[in-house]
Structures are given as structure tokens and as C-alpha cells.
């Protein structure tokens, strides 16, 4: 047949039939899936400040690592992405390697949190959790693993409190916010963020989600859901899909003042590169990050382009800098099967060499 299409009537009919069979199977599998749960690993609350909670993960065996590892996640999504399910868990992998893993859960800010600043997040919550861990483990410093925006926070914290961070790991962390392929940053450049926060206060989760969906609107709003048909007859695949959807749209609102500062200083001002980041009146210089740094970026990251992460290499003060490129995307770095094979082991090995 000539032209780009070679679709016969029979083939089209067969395709339709296959889709119908999937739909029919979905009538059975969907009710069976029920409510998808998340969080594969038992955890225990060990510290709290307001609605911010520090959890310790409990592995099958006691940790062998002497220095605890604190995971600092982004504000824009829930941190259980690092422990989504039994076979997709960065936490589980780290525990299996002997690490002692903690995560800081920011909770769901409400309107009374509107005036929380970046200083509150970094100098109050992160510092409070780190202090607690130092005290509990009788150590002067701990290991910190910052993810995405949490990585940016961790860099600020490490620059301001270097004596408290023994080793710093950043994952899919934006550092240079003005790389030409950074769509989010591009969109914020002409946004009047003062007007924005004055008008809406806390930034609603729905608004943030819609913004992320706009990064790849056709793939994320159309193709993904057409693809759902493929897994309707696969109970596990369906549960995985629904669990991921739950995580994607389970987003907290963002505290207005912290959002204002983050957009101004990071997205618009590109403060890590250009200077001008101030946390509680103290300027942040990445040159002050003198502890060993492991920077892990995702090679197909559409949210934090690789060059945005790799910029850290030329800015950070440490001479002990390692950079690892993961073959995958912003989410795949936690949940793909490749991630389970590679990421926990890479982190553990790097830390083990620096204990």
C-alpha cells in the first residue's frame, strides 16, 4: 500500500477487539485493585516540629552504617516516592545495603503556614531534624540526601551549616535554573511573583500539578491514559499505574512566602550561579559546601534538565565531587527497575568510601 498508512480493515478491527478485551478484563481487575497503598517500609516517627515529621525507616536488619542518612525531599510532592512500593523503593535498597535511613516529611501546609519562609524550612525544620539526629547518634554531623527542590534546600543547608553535614548527596537537583531547556524556569521569568502570592496566598496543589502537566501536555494528559488500556488486564501493572497517579496528584499546597522566595531567588535570580540567595539574612555560597558531594542527575529529566544539575560541579567548594548520570527520567530514577539495581548501591558505595 502506498503512503504512510498500511492499516487494513481487518487489522483495525483486530485492534479494536483487543482493546475491548482489555476493557472487559478491566471490569474485573479494577475492583480487585481496590485502594492502592504506598510506603513499603515500616517507619517510626522520631522527631516533630509542627506538621513537619522526621521518620526513621526500619529495615529487616539493623543498619551497619554508623552515620545516618537524612532524605530531604521537595515541597511539591509527597516524599513516599522514595518508598513507593516493595519492588520500587530507594529506601528499601538503601536499608538492604546497611544504611540507616531517615526522611523528613513536610506534611500538608495550610493557610496558617502561608508565612513560612525558606529560612523556616532550612534553618528551622532541616536544622532541627539534623540536630536531633546528631544528638541521637552522638555525632557532630550526618549524611544528607537532597532530592529535587530538597536538593536545593540541602545545598543551602550545607553551605550555611557545613559542620553538620558529613557527606552530601544531591539527586535530580536544579542548580543552574537558567539552562535554555528549563521550561519551568522559562515560564516564571516574566511572572510577577509578588502579585501572584499576594493574590492567592499559598499556592494550590492543583495549580502546581497543572503546571507540571503543561510541561508535556499531550503525553501526560492524553497518551498516558490511552496507555492505561494496555494494563487493564494486568492487576499488578494496574496497581502500579494507580499508585503512581496517586503520588503525582497527592501534592501539598505550597507555603506562599517560601514559594515567593524560591521563585525569586532560584528560578528568576538563578542565585546559585549569580549569587543573591539569602536565607534568614545570610547569603548562600556554594563555595562553602566543602564536604564530599555526590551529584546524581537523570539523563532524560524533563523537569530538571541534566545541565541544570551538572552545573554544581563548577560551583561547589569541595574537591571531592562525584557526578553520576542515571539513564532515565525524573521519576524513573526512583521507581524504574534500573534504578533499583543501580541507585542504592551507587549511593552506598560512595558513602562507604567516605565514612
Amino acid at each position, binding site marked *: *500500500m*502506498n*503512503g*504512510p*498508512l498500511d492499516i*487494513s*480493515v481487518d*487489522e*483495525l*478491527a483486530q*485492534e479494536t477487539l483487543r482493546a*475491548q478485551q482489555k476493557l472487559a*478484563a478491566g*471490569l*474485573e481487575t*479494577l475492583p480487585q*485493585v481496590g*485502594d492502592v497503598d504506598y510506603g513499603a517500609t515500616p517507619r517510626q516517627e522520631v522527631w516533630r516540629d509542627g506538621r513537619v515529621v522526621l521518620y526513621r525507616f526500619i529495615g529487616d536488619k539493623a543498619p551497619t552504617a554508623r552515620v545516618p542518612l537524612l532524605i530531604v525531599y521537595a515541597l511539591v510532592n509527597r516524599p513516599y516516592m522514595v518508598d513507593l512500593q516493595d519492588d520500587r523503593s530507594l529506601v528499601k535498597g538503601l536499608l*538492604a*545495603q546497611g544504611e540507616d535511613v531517615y526522611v523528613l516529611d513536610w506534611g500538608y501546609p495550610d*493557610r496558617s503556614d*502561608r508565612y513560612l519562609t525558606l529560612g523556616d524550612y532550612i534553618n528551622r525544620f532541616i536544622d532541627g531534624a539534623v540536630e536531633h539526629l*546528631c*544528638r541521637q547518634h552522638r555525632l557532630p554531623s550526618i549524611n544528607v540526601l537532597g532530592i529535587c527542590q530538597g536538593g536545593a534546600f540541602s545545598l543551602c543547608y550545607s553551605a550555611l551549616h557545613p559542620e553538620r553535614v558529613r557527606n552530601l548527596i544531591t539527586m535530580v537537583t536544579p542548580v543552574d535554573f537558567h539552562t535554555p531547556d528549563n*521550561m519551568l524556569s*522559562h*515560564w516564571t521569568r*516574566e*511572572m510577577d511573583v509578588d502579585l501572584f502570592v499576594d*493574590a492567592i496566598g499559598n*499556592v494550590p496543589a492543583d*495549580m502546581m500539578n*497543572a503546571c507540571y502537566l503543561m510541561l508535556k501536555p*499531550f503525553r501526560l*494528559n*492524553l497518551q498516558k491514559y490511552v496507555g492505561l*488500556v494496555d494494563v487493564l488486564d494486568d492487576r499488578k501493572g494496574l496497581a502500579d499505574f494507580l499508585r503512581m497517579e496517586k503520588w503525582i496528584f497527592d501534592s501539598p499546597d505550597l507555603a506562599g512566602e517560601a514559594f515567593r522566595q524560591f521563585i525569586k531567588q532560584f528560578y528568576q535570580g538563578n542565585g546559585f550561579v*549569580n549569587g543573591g540567595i539569602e536565607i534568614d539574612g545570610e547569603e548562600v*555560597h556554594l*563555595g562553602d559546601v*566543602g564536604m564530599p558531594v555526590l551529584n546524581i542527575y537523570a539523563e532524560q529529566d524533563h523537569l530538571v534538565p541534566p545541565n541544570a544539575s*551538572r*552545573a554544581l*560541579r*563548577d*560551583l561547589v*567548594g569541595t*574537591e*571531592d565531587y562525584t*557526578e553520576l*548520570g542515571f*539513564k532515565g527520567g525524573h521519576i524513573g530514577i526512583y521507581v524504574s527497575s534500573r534504578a533499583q539495581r*543501580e*541507585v542504592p*548501591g*551507587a549511593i552506598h*558505595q560512595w558513602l*562507604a*568510601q*567516605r565514612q
Partner: protein
Amino acid sequence: MAEHVPPGAGEFEAMARQFWNLWGDALRQASGATTAPAPGWPQALDWWSRLMPGGGHGPAEDVLQRFRQHSGDWYGLMQQVAARFAGQDTAAADVASAWKQALGVDAGRGPWMDFFRGLQGGGGGGFEQWYRQVAPYLDNLRRENERWLHLPAFGPAREHQERWQALAQAQRDYQQALGEYERVMLKVATQAFERFESLLEARSEPGQQITSARALFDLWIDAAEQAYAEVALSPEFRHVYGRLTNTQMRLRLGVQKEIEQVCVALGMPSRTEVDSAHRKIAELERQLRQVIRNRDRRDPDDAAETGTPEARGRASHGDTRRARQTPAARAARQAKPRGRAKPPGEPAPAVTAKSASATKSARAGKGTGKPAKAAATRPAARAGASEVVSMKDWVARYAGDAPAGAGRSKGKRGQGGRK
């Protein structure tokens, strides 16, 4: 096939048979015809949704809603387009044109614009719904006061008049910005269809041809994403998006001010008052924390007894922060190099695992990290120098160090992949 047959499964089969027969008829008619009114994917999804136990309620409801809405509309239309050309020779331009027509792009309405309006509405945090609610009020205000809204304000109602003038202007600005945004989205459409046609042409060789409606749909998604990314990263989009956001926020603020006026008149608390209270609470919390910190620094032992978590930590391990925050310590810290930032505009060096390792080896000697046990047999990073590698190589390199069961690839790499 299944142990538990859900209620409605038999009905679905009956419906599927009916659907199947309709498809067969439609496709038989389609051979040689220009159009074929085949029953669409949306109908199948409607049947399916009706038969879903509980109507698809529960945890999966949101997902199913998106599935029905987006998958039904767009994939259904693409299936219609595929059916129209099934079994026929066709040109890329014809397929792209049929798809464009199905999405109603030329008419400026239909799925394409609905899609982007919906996204824009979501992006405004439900702004579209909110705007629909306040639009009659705003329209009425503008209609009734059109003439005097443009007059200079004076007299006892001057402030009110100015406020209303600003609000009316904000609505006009928003409408204009929305129009600009939609114009840019139509530009995306134009480029997306051009790209689609180009991708279709590239698939015209035997062996490269599209053989299913789904593959055709996926090709369209690729084309649309490419076109969208190009526009979304353009200065024009940045300007239009910024203006849309800013005008929308100005309009929100204007309406909020009006509502506050009403609240004040009725003696009800306003948002400004609530925000003010929250701001004071946040400030008080910070001041209280600072007082506690200062007190703890003065008397860590006493602080440990009073039981604040922070104080206990410092009392038991010494206040490293205090030492750091002495003027000398601060000066020493700030005297360290402020990074090695590139001059603005200097392009980042292209880094591959191989070349980066070579580049970094020059810095390896400057490392201050502790020497590792196996440094002599390991590459540079082991001893605390800087290194850039792919994670795959890294894992392969240290596969031998990983504990049992650490990863599936361990055994294989341990035998043959280790570098």
C-alpha cells in the same frame, strides 16, 4: 478466564458483540468510501463505564475520569481518522488534514481548544470555574458603569470609583491576555500538524508504515510535543504566559478587594485580617525560637533539663553552631573560595563519561578526602578526588563491593563487566 466474574461482564460481552458488529459494518462500508461513521471509542468507554461496579467510584475514580475524558475524545477521533483511510492508498497531507479537521482547529473550537482551555483553567487553580462565577458580576459592573468608569475620579466616592475602574481594567486585560494565549496555542496547532505531516511522510517507505490506529495516535503525540516544546520555550510564549498569569492575579486581587469591602460593611472578618493574624503568629514563633536558642546558648545544661529537643542536643554534644557563629569562625568560613562560577555566557563543557574522567583527573590530586583502603586499585574518585561517570559504569566498577542481593546485575557484572 477469570475465577471471579464481575457483575455486568456478560452485559459487556453483549455490548461488545454489538459494538463489534457495528464496527464490522462500518469498516466494510469504509472500503473505498471517503468517510465511515464507525462507532467510536467513546461509545465503548461509555458502555464500559456504565458496567464498572460502583460506576468507577473509589480510589481509581479520578484516574478513570481522566481516562474516559482524554482517551475517549482524542483516541476515539484518531480511530475514526484511521478507519477513514483503512485499506486505501493515502498521502501524509490527507491524513494530517483529516486529523486537523477532526480536532476543529480551523474553526477555533473543538477538542484542541477545549484541551488547552482546560489545562489553562487547571493552571489557574480552578480559576476558570471561579471566573465563570464572578464574570456576570464583572460584566454587569462594566456595562452599567461603562461611561463614568473612564472619567476622572473625584468627590466622596473617589476611592471606590478608582477601585472599580481598576477592576474593570483588570478584566479587560485578562480577556486580552487570554486571547493572546489562545492565539499562541493555535500556533502550536499549526506547527504540530506540519510536524505530523512531516513525520508521516518519513514513514511512507515500506516497512516504515503505520499499521494501527494506536501507532498513528502515538506519532501524533510525538509531533504535538515537539511543536509545543518549541513554542513553549520561545520568548513569545514566556511573555504571553507571564502576562496571562499576571493579569489573572490582578483580576483576582480586584475581586478580593470588592469582597473585602462587603465583609467590612457587614462586620465580618476579611482575608486581610486572617493573613495579618497568621503573619503575626509566624513572627512570634520565630522570635520565641530565637529566645529559646539564645537562652540555650547561655546555659546549655539548664536547657537540657527544660527539655527542648534542640537544647538537649547541644547540651549533650556541645554547641558547634555557637562556635561557628563567633565572628572569627564566620570570617574564616566566608574567606573560603566562593566556588568557581563560570563567567556569564560561557558555555558548559560537554562532558562524557570518558572525557570527564580525563578532565577530572587533573583535579584528583587536590582531594582532601580520606584515602580509601583500595585506593591503589580503584579509579580516582575513590580517594576523594572529583569524578564524572555514568551510574551504569559506577555500578559495574563497584559491583564486587556490593553485599549479597544488592542488585540483580551484580553477578553478571562481577564476572564480566567489572572495569
